């Protein structure tokens, strides 16, 4: 019998049995085709970002497909943290032993309230901070302002002892600066990256294809940009990186590992194929065997000169 290749990774304080998980906003434990066994094969489950209080999200239309991508302006609808704890958390516990909860908010106070509320809930393994939310104080997303980003993470850390994942916005001129600010503030893990801002117009009707006009682009179209950002950031930070953006198959995920990611989230590809994360896990194992590696850790940041 051939020895099973190891897919376990440690992202700082966060241990994962394998490095594949859904990207926030593309997985709902109440609406999944995967059964409990299948969900338990994932490295973690990541529900859609939750807000402290209920919020309804953006007007329709919220999505449109573009060439090799998906533009969305869903706008983070949330039933609020208490609903999440009562209705979703028990189901997530059945789905996986690693639960990463993504947080959204419009102010430092929003995030701190959430972090404090979730701190004592032992089933939650880590908190992912959605930095693409606009800051109510100046309308600029936290992820676009390294000073605000730093302040936010420092304050969140004061309210929780759970590992913090900073999900960076790619809509910046230098992602490294944002990553370094997050690291300096005490972030445990960096996620690169959220969706890229985009827009699409229906030329027949001459109207925006999204109710919110501007949306976030995901899908294969953005993957080369994200690969570049992961690679650039991996050169300068000393904390692990989760890569996300346009991964549709094992090769795409492997590309992210080679660029320097220690784990990979799969986003909108889940919509086309609800089993894609399981297929990617199988494909990664096959690649490692073929290349005669005994662990995924052997290929993280391996890109050669």
């Amino acid at each position: 019998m051939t020895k099973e290749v190891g897919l376990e990774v440690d992202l700082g304080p966060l241990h994962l049995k394998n490095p594949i998980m859904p990207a926030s906003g593309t997985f709902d434990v109440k609406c999944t085709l995967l059964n409990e066994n299948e969900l338990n094969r994932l490295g973690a489950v990541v529900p859609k970002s939750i807000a402290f209080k209920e919020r309804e999200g953006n007007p329709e239309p919220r999505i449109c497909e573009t060439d090799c991508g998906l533009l969305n302006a869903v706008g983070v609808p949330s039933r609020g943290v208490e609903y999440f704890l009562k209705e979703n958390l028990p189901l997530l516990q059945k789905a996986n032993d690693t639960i990463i909860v993504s947080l959204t908010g419009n102010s430092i106070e929003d995030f701190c309230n959430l972090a404090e509320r979730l701190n004592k809930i032992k089933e939650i393994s880590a908190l992912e901070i959605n930095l693409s939310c606009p800051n109510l104080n100046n309308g600029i997303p936290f992820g676009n302002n390294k000073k605000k980003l730093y302040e936010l993470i420092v304050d969140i850390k004061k309210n929780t002892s759970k590992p913090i994942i900073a999900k960076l916005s790619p809509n910046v001129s230098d992602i490294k600066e944002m990553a370094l600010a997050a690291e300096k503030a005490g972030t445990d893990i960096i996620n690169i990256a959220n969706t890229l801002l985009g827009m699409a117009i229906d030329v027949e009707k001459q109207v925006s294809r999204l109710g919110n006009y501007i949306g976030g682009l995901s899908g294969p179209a953005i993957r080369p940009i994200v690969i570049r950002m992961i690679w650039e950031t991996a050169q300068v930070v000393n904390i692990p990186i989760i890569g996300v953006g346009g991964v549709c198959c094992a090769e795409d995920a492997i590309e992210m590992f080679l660029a320097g990611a220690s784990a990979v989230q799969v986003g909108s590809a889940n919509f086309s194929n609800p089993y894609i994360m399981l297929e990617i896990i199988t494909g990664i194992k096959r690649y490692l065997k073929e290349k005669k590696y005994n662990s995924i850790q052997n290929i993280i940041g391996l890109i050669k000169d």
Partner: protein
Amino acid sequence: MQKLKNRNSILTKGKIIEQINLNNNYYKIKIEAPQIAKEAKPGQFVMLSKWKIKELFLKRPFSFYNIEPNLGTFDILYKKIGKGTQILTESKISDLVELIGPLGNGFNIPESTRKIAVVARGIGVAPLIPLMLESKKKGIEIYSFLSTQTENLLLHSDKVESISKETFYTTDDGSKGAKGKVTNFLEKILKEIVIDVVYTCGSKRLAKHIRNLQKKYNFLAFVSLEEHMACGIGACKGCVRKTKNGYKRVCKEGPVFPVEEVIFND
């Protein structure tokens, strides 16, 4: 214990066993997928792809037009409008498609329903035909109101006529039936007889007219809504429509909604 799974929906392959160009850009395709055909209900839909994920990113939603559980097949009626439907028109017999389904909530036929009306414009008739067949089986009388641009765009009107007690037509150019609003005919019938439920699909304009008639004549009314969808299973929150109770997902809480719940902005 609540199961972590979407009802009876599955991801499966289907085989194309027939494709007919009905007229102009309208096509009918027959797909063999026994597990889906067995579970499908009128008003539900499938997400379908006949392309690789990097060719075209998302699956496309199609409602069931004809369901044959015993043969393990279903039909969909579609109009060629974009890249996805263009690829579908190029299908050959025995080609495979990938499907997720059946999805959404089908049409509800309330107990003790005796007479229904179906109101459709163009291809909107597609999901209403399985509903009509099921109603007919229950001994319900059906009044059909079809509207279209011009006579040769009427889809399967012979089938509709054979199931219906009466069928009324309006065309924009007057080539079949009358010109004008199809709901004027509906109102004429509503004045004469008691219609328990009115069903419609697709057109916001028709749904709005039906809503206005509902206030006057007091009947149940359901509309099957259409919206761009990414996942079809409720996960992405992308296909919402505004209702009196906030945004609802067309794929999950719908696609069939009581007409009075939906807020029509335009």
